């Protein structure tokens, strides 16, 4: 892909530029600029590409501004040309209608392409893991439909495997964001939204809610722990053995407004996720209930 080549070539400039811009130390402090999965990486490339494309126009404009303001300042003895009635030039106007059209054209082209690309799973030949996520007041509930376990405010995923997060909300709408793995998606009552993410390496990735939901919103942080497949399996087994199950009553308790620590459940009420989605669904077929 051309974009990738462009990106590889400009990488040294880019890193230098970011270093100057942020001054404040290492890149790992900037999760968005330190992506650890294919989704995050393609978004990162688009961020860099658009920043460079924009800089191509912004920097010259600012330099021209400084030059003009200095050159044509009103003071005695300024012998720069002064043409008070000159106010029209077809050629010049064509140029500056043209430049932004060109830049926006190029950027628009790549944007449209990437937009369609990112709807698909990052890798095709692996069976993905599905995790159902319910945002509550003010905590995140994760359910593993294949493993039949559930967690609160953290989840484990196998490294290198595409994960399909299915998001809904049983509280005001939130947004599910793990910056190092990729961009966010809204979790909304009555909707089941899909978000593909993948971690290439093992690690602890911080996530947070990104859409305001009230008093406890600031505390809606969670961890995504990427582990080798074997330790992921061991973790699932251990949860199944040692943790209590989440009951219907337990869910109602969990749903109440409040913040929570990390929690694990060896089982959860079957169909809980679908019930939550259907309960809040805004489709006309549910009006009869």
């Amino acid at each position, binding site marked *: 892909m051309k974009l990738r080549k462009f990106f590889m070539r400009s990488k040294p400039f880019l890193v230098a530029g970011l270093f100057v811009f*942020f001054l404040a130390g290492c890149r790992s402090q*900037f*999760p*968005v600029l330190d992506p650890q999965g294919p989704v995050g990486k393609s978004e990162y490339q*688009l961020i860099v590409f*658009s920043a460079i494309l*924009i800089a191509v*126009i*912004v920097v010259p404009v*600012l330099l021209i*501004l400084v030059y003009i*303001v200095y050159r*044509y300042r*009103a003071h005695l003895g300024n012998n720069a*040309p*002064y043409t*008070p*009635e*000159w*106010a*029209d*030039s077809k050629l*010049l*106007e064509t140029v500056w209608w043209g*430049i*932004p059209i060109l830049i*926006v054209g190029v950027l*628009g082209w790549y*944007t*449209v392409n*990437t*937009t369609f690309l*990112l709807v698909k799973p990052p890798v095709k030949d692996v069976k993905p893991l599905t995790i159902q996520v319910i945002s509550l007041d003010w905590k995140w509930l994760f359910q593993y439909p294949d493993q039949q376990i559930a967690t609160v405010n953290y989840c484990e995923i196998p490294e290198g495997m595409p994960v399909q997060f299915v998001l809904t909300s049983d*509280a*005001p*709408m939130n*947004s599910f964001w793990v910056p190092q793995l*990729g*961009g*966010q*998606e*809204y979790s909304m*009552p009555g*909707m089941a939204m899909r978000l593909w993410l993948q971690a290439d390496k093992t690690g602890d990735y*911080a996530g*947070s809610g*990104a*859409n*305001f*939901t*009230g*008093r*406890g*919103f*600031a505390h809606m942080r969670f961890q995504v722990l990427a582990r080798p497949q074997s330790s992921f399996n061991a973790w699932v087994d251990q949860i199944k053995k040692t943790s209590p199950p989440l009951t219907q009553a337990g869910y109602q308790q969990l749903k109440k407004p409040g913040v929570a620590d990390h929690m694990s459940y060896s089982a959860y009420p079957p169909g809980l996720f679908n019930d939550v989605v259907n309960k809040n669904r*805004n*489709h*006309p077929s*549910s*009006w009869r209930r």
Partner: protein
Amino acid sequence: MGNGNLTASHFFVTGDPLIYSADAAIILSVLSILFFLTRCHKWGWLWREWITSVDHKKIGIMYMIAAMLMLFRGGVDALLMRTQLALPNLQFLRAQHYDEIFTTHGTIMILFMAMPLMFALFNIVVPLQIGARDVAYPFLNAVSFWLFFFGAMLFNLSFVIGGSPDAGWLAYPPLSETAFSPGPGENFYIWGIQISGIGSLATGINFVATILKMRAPGMKLMRMPLFAWSVLSSSIVIIFAFPVLTITLALLFIDRFAGAHFFGMTGGANPMMYVNLIWMWGHPEVYIVVLPAFGVFSEVVSTFAKKRIFGYKSMVFSMLIISVLSFFTWVHHFFTMGAGADVNAFFAVTTMAIAIPTGVKVFNWLFTLYRGRITMASPMLWTISFIPAFVVGGATGVMLAVAPADYQYHNSYFLIAHFHQVLIGGVVFGYFAGLYYWWPKMFGFQLDERLGKWAFWLWNIGFYVCFMPQYALGFMGMTRRVYTYGWDLGWAPLNFVSTVGAFLMGAGFVFQVWQILYSIRHGRRDLTGDPWNGRTLEWSMPSPAPYYNFAQIPQVKDRDAWWMEKQQMPEEGRGNTAVKYEPIHMPKNSGIPFVMAVFWFIAGFGFTFHWIALGIAGLAGVGMSLLARSFQYKMEYEIPVEEIQRVEASMGRIG
């Protein structure tokens, strides 16, 4: 349904020392104003000269004063927030208080600061600039102002009575529904905005009519000053956008008041519908406020470079394109709501497309400066500083428009930095440029340049110190609307820097207040009416303009009408030609707009607390006011020739 079980202890906001001290400050300042008015026997003056006035210049000044007070309130909100975020784990504000403050900060700054400041400029400048004696509907103009004023008062009242709204400046449901926001806060929000929104819509209609029908003879549309063009394009957007807001908030209120299911979580309700509707107004809204700023820049650049504006037709054309395109970008506020790749791709491209006409305008301003003679007076300083601020802010806007990348920026501090950069760098700097530029025309004296420079540099340095770190904080994963954060996230240093920047801007505002107070005494009086060597008609008349504006309606022969006239006229003969005056018809003052707005306030207050009887009584009062108006038959009076001669002579315009 609702909060019928409200008790007296819920009525007044209690329990927070910050709020008690604000209460004390409000009560003290109200008492001192009342004392001053009584002591100096100013009640009659206030009623006759201001409250009942339908003069566009006075209405403009009242808009400006109200907007400045709201800028103060919104600014204090901002400083409180930045104080809370300066360091991790601070206990300065509790979560609830912080949520209320960011909500009121956003609402006030857009709807009760930017909008009235914009209407101030509309009112003060447009009739003078197009050679008219008033706006098309002077009575309606007064109605608009008082509706805005009492809407803003109702909204601000929530601070001490009942509790402020705390669901964000756009009040997304389900959070803003009764289930999650049971108190009266969201009702204050809805009614405050609804009441002032009616006024805004009326102002939009008023200025479209004024500009299309009231121009001086000879002023064809393509001879109109660019500020008037910007007002026209902005007003057109108002007319199409504000009804959407009115309906959206009305539906939200029906949800809250009558338990309907438009936007909640159950019964087929759909919060996504609200998010779409509110941004169908919300996105055009930002163009509503920025277009007039573009107009100001065009006037100022041309005047202070002593050169005709470059590419006039492109400037007009690009503003009209922006007005139209502004209605086709709203989805970019929620790319992450899962609309699908095709929808997101469409709105990404339309959003980027807005950068094209905007970019053209920047180039045209630059080439107006090119081969000009640039004087750096206050209005020009703000205009020049606008260009880098807005160019960088616009550039990050284009980055945000890249839909897949937006998944990483959305609701982060990158977004916060972007929109503050365009709204402060574009709108606020633009309106400041306009205020400095037209101040002598409003009040007849100039503002002190030395204090103005202090204010300018504090604002500008503070602006970059405050918002540049916020772009980086976005990349660090900091999301908006968090009231606290931990040391482990590494956000502390940049947040601290950002807070310092906010206080520098606050200091800049203090200097502006000082500058105004100082200049009232010591500012240079403007005796010529044309202190900047201006180009458009408002500079052809004395400062401040007489209440009937033009003793004789000017004949316009070209763009930059006053500049052309000055070129053809010998210096000493200016304004001294013997003319034959004719009697002038002017609209009479009226107390009805004020009284009607008070009734709206009563209605809004009643419905906010579910006191239905009071609400209906208020609405009945509104109906009576309208009825009373329809029975008024003599709404105009005539100024006799002798009086015109006397006024003109007193201003040195007749030799």
